[in-house]
């Protein structure tokens, strides 16, 4: 009995805090989503695209930020989800957006497992090169199987039914936007659970010292493969959202550029934090949209300058640096 009391007093503190942070995170996403809807009602397509890319960046954060696997091929998972959802609708007439999303999740997870099996055989630079090789192979596969994917013309003929048979995907993108917000919220809550779970703790250990994890009797590669599958499911959700909302899938979804941009967004926001991934996506894509409209000739220069500034002066990323600043004085727990 005394022991139980001790346990309570010693070890009860951190629990309430993380739950509050979950609620706060959900609230922040909801507020941003509402603000976006109210402030930019004519630009919902862009906002929905931000949501789908945010899912890709979250997925990337799982393997890169939480597990320390650097990859430049993560769009392979995103694109697989997009093509799966698109092909279900365009070729099989499965137009229920929930089923299409499920298809994207499954395809993303399978692609994730495939990438993991190949990439986890190497470490460091060779691993990075493998990830690049993989994204090119995925891209080429989609390009060559044009009877299924539409090749370089893109996959069209995607016609999602109304959500729950009630909310039609309208021309203004209202339904797509709310559908995307719902997917992001669900993914966010589930991922908060995962990163805090025993498995999340195991992955943090692997990032720091895989050999030490082996000495605990756990297999780093098995855990990383599992994380890749989870990451694939999240990225696949993003891909499916992109296919459903734009009703086309282009080869870009499976491109090296998309992968590299996702990594840039993650670094910009801050690795190893779900909020960082979301902040990075939002800032990068809004900045890109705003600057490319304001100065179409030099916008890439400005994006480059922003990135250099962040990496040099805020190496933990914009969110990471801000979070470190606000929680600095003597707080032991995140």
């Amino acid at each position: 009995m005394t022991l139980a009391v001790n346990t309570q007093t010693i070890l009860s503190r951190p629990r309430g805090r993380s739950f509050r942070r979950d609620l706060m995170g959900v609230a922040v996403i909801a507020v941003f989503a509402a603000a976006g809807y109210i402030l930019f009602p004519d630009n919902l397509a862009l906002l929905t695209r931000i949501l789908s890319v945010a899912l890709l960046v979250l997925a990337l954060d799982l393997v890169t930020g939480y597990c320390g696997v650097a990859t430049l091929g993560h769009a392979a998972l995103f694109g697989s989800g997009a093509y799966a959802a698109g092909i279900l609708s365009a070729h099989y007439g499965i137009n229920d957006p929930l089923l299409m999303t499920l298809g994207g999740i499954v395809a993303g997870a399978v692609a994730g497992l495939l990438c993991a099996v190949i990439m986890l055989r190497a470490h460091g630079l060779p691993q990075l090169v493998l990830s690049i090789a993989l994204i090119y192979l995925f891209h080429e596969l989609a390009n060559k199987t044009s009877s299924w994917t539409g090749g370089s013309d893109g996959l069209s003929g995607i016609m999602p039914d109304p959500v729950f048979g009630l909310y039609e995907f309208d021309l203004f993108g209202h339904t797509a936007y709310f559908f995307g917000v719902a997917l992001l919220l669900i993914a966010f809550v589930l991922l908060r659970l995962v990163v805090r779970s025993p498995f999340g703790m195991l992955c943090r250990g692997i990032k720091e010292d895989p050999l030490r994890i082996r000495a605990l009797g756990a297999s780093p590669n098995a855990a990383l493969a599992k994380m890749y599958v989870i990451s694939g499911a999240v990225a696949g959700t993003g891909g499916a959202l992109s296919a459903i909302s734009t009703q086309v899938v282009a080869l870009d979804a499976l491109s090296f550029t998309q992968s590299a941009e996702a990594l840039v967004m993650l670094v910009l926001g801050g690795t190893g934090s779900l909020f960082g991934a979301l902040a990075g996506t939002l800032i990068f894509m809004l900045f890109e949209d705003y600057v490319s409209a304001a100065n179409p000739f030099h916008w890439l220069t400005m994006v480059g300058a922003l990135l250099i500034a962040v990496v040099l002066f805020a190496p933990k990323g914009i969110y990471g640096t801000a979070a470190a600043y606000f929680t600095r004085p003597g707080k032991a727990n995140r």
Partner: protein
Amino acid sequence: MSAVFEVANLKRSFGGLVVTNDVSLSMAPGDRIALIGPNGAGKTTFVNLVTGNLPPSSGEVRLGGETVTRIDAIGRVRRGLVRSFQVTRLFQDMTPAEHVGLAVLQRDGRAGRLFGSFLSMPEVMVEVSELLEKLGLAELAHRKVREIAYGQQRLLEIAVALALKPKVLLLDEPAAGVPQSDTGRIEQALADLPPDLAVLMIEHDMDLVFRFAKRVIVLAAGTIIFDGLPADVTKDARVREAYLGNYANASHVA
């Protein structure tokens, strides 16, 4: 008592260099053995061979009667062969509670769980707080490892190893780098190790060796040159030569 851990004719060479040469030893539950030897004697290689991080050229390793020579390091840990590290290899951003919690969960095959927090699993937390309290780390349960003293990190290494409920524990210089004032706490922890656990300690500090070990094994140039009581080790001529080298002869030359 029957052997819980056996090494038979273990050999390992790198190219032409034989680093571990025909080493055999056997441990029973409750053994307290110190493995000593001069620098370059092959102690580290021996640990790597035994834990499965390095394949032997020939010979066998048996754990609880089962031959584990072909089983990898992870499999050996799961069968009860656990090691601590010479330099602490803890996760700097994690807390002592998380370290021990992770080890307990891993031992029970639940480290892959995707939901819940070990903080809300009472059966895990009872073990975590018991172990941390036993090693005097309860106060620091939620500090990050980077914020706690080195001596306490060494104690945490022991706590993590014990959380895995090993049958055989390899301690690689458990007191290395710890200030003199803190070694008492570590010695106490070593004295409090479970009585049925077989412990092999690699150590340079002879005071600690004499206080801890019931049996001493001396490794030199990859071979066991002494295996016996601590009281006899300093009298052994071969041990003296291995440690003092040519000094013994040098006096003649001079």
